[in-house]
């Protein structure tokens, strides 16, 4: 989904809304105002604004998503320990209730803003925008956004970040990518966490989990990681360094990056924006 034209119109569905297509007129043959906007257009505009804010400060924003209890906060603690002398980090925490996670991060000496969503099952771009008002970005290198623990809804909301990291702990089952394809399609990186427990689990095969990810046509790398044994921590921090370096290059070139999820819509956005297509299209009434 894009920021301005809602270009979920792709080569595969464009014929439906083009003139004469079955979505260009109503049941009784009358014309309809064709809108062609993503349903989350408002969120996406805010996300675009957030991303500009991150880019202006040269910050890499990484969204961590997973089911509850897969180790997002523990990963942040280990990441802070590994990178505290190298980069300035900050964290935006999302939970339904409590400041527990923000307190864990602050105890490591890193600024953390806690968003409590009440009953909302995901963070959206407006919540992150509000948090950014409380989080000075000057001097910050990487902002982690720890999304609400949920393998469904967070995948649908662009927050204005640059990369999605999806955690899958080995206690959850190696078929999770097949069960939650929308979430795992959105991953720029899959982290298989708590791998120290593999020694006592006989029903989780990391290769099967990665194979399930490939079935989603995802090229995202998969890193096996344990914050207890430190397996994979070097690979994870190396990925972060590469992404921060790439972000700095983009910023120098006045470019930006969007997380995985909807590359076709993004590609089409540029094509349609280039042709200055109007936001509304009036189609002739059918007799």
């Amino acid at each position, binding site marked *: 989904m894009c920021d301005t034209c809602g270009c979920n119109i792709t080569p595969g569905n464009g014929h439906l809304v083009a003139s004469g297509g079955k979505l260009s007129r109503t049941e009784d043959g*009358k014309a309809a*105002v064709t*809108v062609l906007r993503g349903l989350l257009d408002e969120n996406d505009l805010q996300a675009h604004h957030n991303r500009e804010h991150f880019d202006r400060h040269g910050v890499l924003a990484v969204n961590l998503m997973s089911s509850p209890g897969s180790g997002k906060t523990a990963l942040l603690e280990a990441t802070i320990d590994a990178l505290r002398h190298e980069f300035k980090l900050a964290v935006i925490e999302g939970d339904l209730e409590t400041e527990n996670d923000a307190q864990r991060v602050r105890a490591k000496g890193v600024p953390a803003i806690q968003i409590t969503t009440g009953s909302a099952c995901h963070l959206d771009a407006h919540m992150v925008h509000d948090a950014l008002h409380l989080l000075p970005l000057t001097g910050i290198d990487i902002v982690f956004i720890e999304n609400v623990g949920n393998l469904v809804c967070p995948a649908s909301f662009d927050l204005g970040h640059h990369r999605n990291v999806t955690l899958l702990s080995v206690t959850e089952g190696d078929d999770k990518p*097949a069960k939650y394809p929308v979430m795992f399609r959105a991953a720029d990186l899959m982290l298989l966490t708590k791998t120290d427990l593999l020694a006592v689990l006989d029903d989780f095969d990391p290769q099967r989990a990665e194979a399930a990810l490939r079935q989603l046509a995802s090229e995202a790398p998969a890193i096996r990681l344990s914050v207890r044994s430190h397996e994979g921590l070097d690979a994870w921090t190396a990925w972060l360094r590469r992404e921060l370096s790439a972000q700095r290059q983009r910023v120098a070139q006045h470019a930006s990056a969007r997380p995985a999820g909807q590359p*076709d819509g993004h590609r089409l956005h540029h094509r349609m924006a280039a042709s200055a297509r109007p936001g509304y299209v*009036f189609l002739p*009434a059918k007799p």
Partner: protein
Amino acid sequence: MHELSVCRSLIAQVEAVAIQHGARAVRSIRICVGPLSGIDPDLLQRTYPLARAGTVADTAGLIIEHLPIRVRCERCGFESEAAPNRLICTRCGDWHTRLLSGDEMLLASVELETDDGLPASPDQARIF
């Protein structure tokens, strides 16, 4: 369970379109939803009456067009329909495919009631 958020956003967009065209009311709303959009069409349909209540769309029907998942293989060029968790090429089995459709969450069109009839006329017709 974020269908209510989506529905509210939908209604906000529809209200903006209605105001722009001076519409008295909205007769129907058409949206396109693909299986990889992350929203459940049935839940959306059930949530919709809550979101439209008291708005310019409070009698408008919601028509949901279900779009199939289609992928094109980047290796062999074959196009086929696919299941949400199996987006590989059905001919050569390669996983390097590009999604052609199936992740849509799109407000396609709105049918408005205006005092002077619908704004559409052949003169104004534009094809994107």
